[in-house]
């Protein structure tokens, strides 16, 4: 809300040097009135549930799911520590949870890197097509979104499973003699996530490239820069904002993804969402589930701030 107010305030000022007070007040009134529906949705649909999650995380689990209204710090304790199952006095770090956290962060990071590597040439290809063709290519990029995620994930399963398309093809060509195990590995999760999230990288990178002034590249060549130098010193800095936006768009849903690791990873190695679901379902420990969900939120926030500080901040310095 503070942000909205700030922006609204900024927008109101520049026109006239000293606008009549009444007119400005009226304009502000209308601005607020018009933004009211959006604000209400934000407050009730975003903050409301979040508040419930925060409150639940400090309550006591009820016998069969749900919560009892007794304040307890146990859930937050359980996020990071555990009592030994067989010796309640022995408290250690909860390595099970920490390794699940680590796997989620690491897979999300790898997905982001893969998407960046694949997304850059794709976006470059599209932005160098004649204007009429670009729209077609962009449309093609969005086609996967037309199909439900679960269906697409099952389709990937069909491609990489032992009797699937890839293995059958390789075996028929006599390149391999027994199927390569791809299903149920981290590799399968990475394929699935990179496939699902790639458009989220391509689109912002393309948007940045679209604005790129080709004359700058020509100027670079005229000044005897090699292709690599043009890429590194002209193209990369200029499309950087696209990469930053794309990385954020890919990283955040990756770290919380549920369907892909569940269907392709075989569930033997949990990701955070699977752990959270376990607590709300079979584990019957809603407060712990809520606390884990908030921990995920904090991880995303910290990663975001860190990322913008290091990479985003860098850019500001350059321009400043």
């Amino acid at each position, binding site marked *: 809300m503070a942000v909205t107010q700030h922006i609204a305030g900024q927008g109101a000022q520049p026109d006239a040097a000293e606008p009549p007070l009444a007119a400005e007040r009226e304009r502000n009134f209308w601005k607020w009135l018009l933004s009211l529906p959006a604000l209400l949705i934000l407050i009730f649909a975003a903050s409301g549930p979040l508040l419930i999650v925060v409150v639940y995380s400090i309550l006591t689990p009820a*016998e069969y*799911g749900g919560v009892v209204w007794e304040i307890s710090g146990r859930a937050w304790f359980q996020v990071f520590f555990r009592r030994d*199952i*067989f010796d309640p006095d022995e408290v250690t770090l909860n390595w099970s949870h920490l390794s699940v956290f680590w796997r989620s962060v690491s897979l999300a990071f790898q997905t982001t890197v893969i998407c960046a590597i694949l997304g850059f040439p794709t976006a470059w290809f599209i932005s160098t097509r004649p204007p009429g063709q670009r729209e077609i290519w962009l449309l093609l990029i969005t086609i996967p979104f037309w199909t439900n995620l679960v269906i697409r994930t099952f389709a990937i399963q069909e491609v990489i*499973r032992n009797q699937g398309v890839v293995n059958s093809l390789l075996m028929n060509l006599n390149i391999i003699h027994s199927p390569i195990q791809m299903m*149920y590995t981290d590799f399968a999760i990475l394929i699935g996530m990179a496939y699902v999230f790639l458009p989220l990288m391509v689109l912002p990178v393309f948007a940045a490239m679209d604005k790129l002034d080709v004359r700058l590249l020509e100027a670079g060549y005229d000044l005897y820069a090699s292709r690599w130098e043009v890429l590194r010193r002209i193209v990369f800095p200029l499309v950087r904002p696209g990469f930053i936006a794309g990385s954020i768009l890919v990283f955040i849903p990756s770290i919380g993804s549920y369907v892909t690791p569940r269907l392709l990873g075989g569930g*033997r190695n949990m990701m955070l969402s699977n752990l959270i679901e*376990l607590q709300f*379902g*079979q584990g019957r420990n809603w407060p712990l589930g809520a606390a884990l969900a908030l921990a995920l939120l904090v991880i995303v926030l910290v990663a975001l701030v860190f990322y913008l500080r290091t990479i985003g901040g860098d850019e500001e310095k350059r321009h400043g």
Partner: protein
Amino acid sequence: MQHKTTTLPIAVAALLGSTALASAEGELNIYNWGNYTSPDVIERFEEETGIEVTLTDYDSNDTALAQIRQGGHGYDIVVPSNSYLPIWIDEGLVQPLDTDIVTDLDNIEEEWRDPEFDPGREYSIPWAWGTTGVIVNTSDYDGEVNTSAIFLDPPEELQGRVNVIPEMSDVMHLAVRYHGGEPCTGDTDILREVRDTLTDAREHWIAMDYGTVDGYAEGDIGAGVYWNGASMRARLQNEDIAYGYPQEGFPIWMDNAMVLSDAQNVDEAMEFINFMLQPENAGENSNFHRYASGIVGAEEYMDPEMVEAPEISIPDELADAGRFSITCPSEVNDIYTQVWTELMQ
């Protein structure tokens, strides 16, 4: 608990427009597992009674329970598993059957007439029952299949080819019984063995997934923990598939139809309950969901391939090893969840 393989969550199916009905005499809203209610049986019920049926799916006991607890759902009938049934009764979410309308409770097979989870069948009737056991592709391994060692101590041929369903209570039940414990035991000596066995066995598992019937039938997966009905479907595709009842102990589950306390159409619901007690309806429903119904005489209406199926009737010598799955008290459940999390970390 046993249908996740084929169900997408929250698929709402408004069944069969009431073409045959000039005037609908009432409505009935059934809230059931996905892929679990025969459309033919529903159609017959609509024709016979003039009641219009709406069917809504859920995908887990927890989902159903959370949804009904919220209130304002508009459902009349729900079909929870035996392990959850006492929760529904204790919390007053369901009402006793009206014996003026539900007159054929005697059609329930004798062994299910007075179960521990609903003494005297005051609230519920059987919908389907089955077992959780092991499935083995005998072209990979032709040894003994009636043992939990298939997944807890896999023979060399099956190592790296075992899939275990991610159902904590079923898997813990099997593992605890394998070590001679009672279901939901809190005995630390047994639980320590259980944890060690599971941790070691996990190295030989390829996945902890619901798995698909095709996956087993086509040989992607060599063996696993699976449900009897699904296992039968795999065998019908590939005759090398065998279902094993672990002699160390295995869980039996039963899903039961009940009428909700805040049902809007109580009489219609009771009428449907009695309708499902009729052998021809129960039998035909079995042909659809592929599990036994617990209703006397239903076999006569079941496909022959089902009546003869070794997956559907427990062999006499192994019958004693079957035990109803129960909901563990939360202090025990917490320990099980911890073991489970270690397993999937």
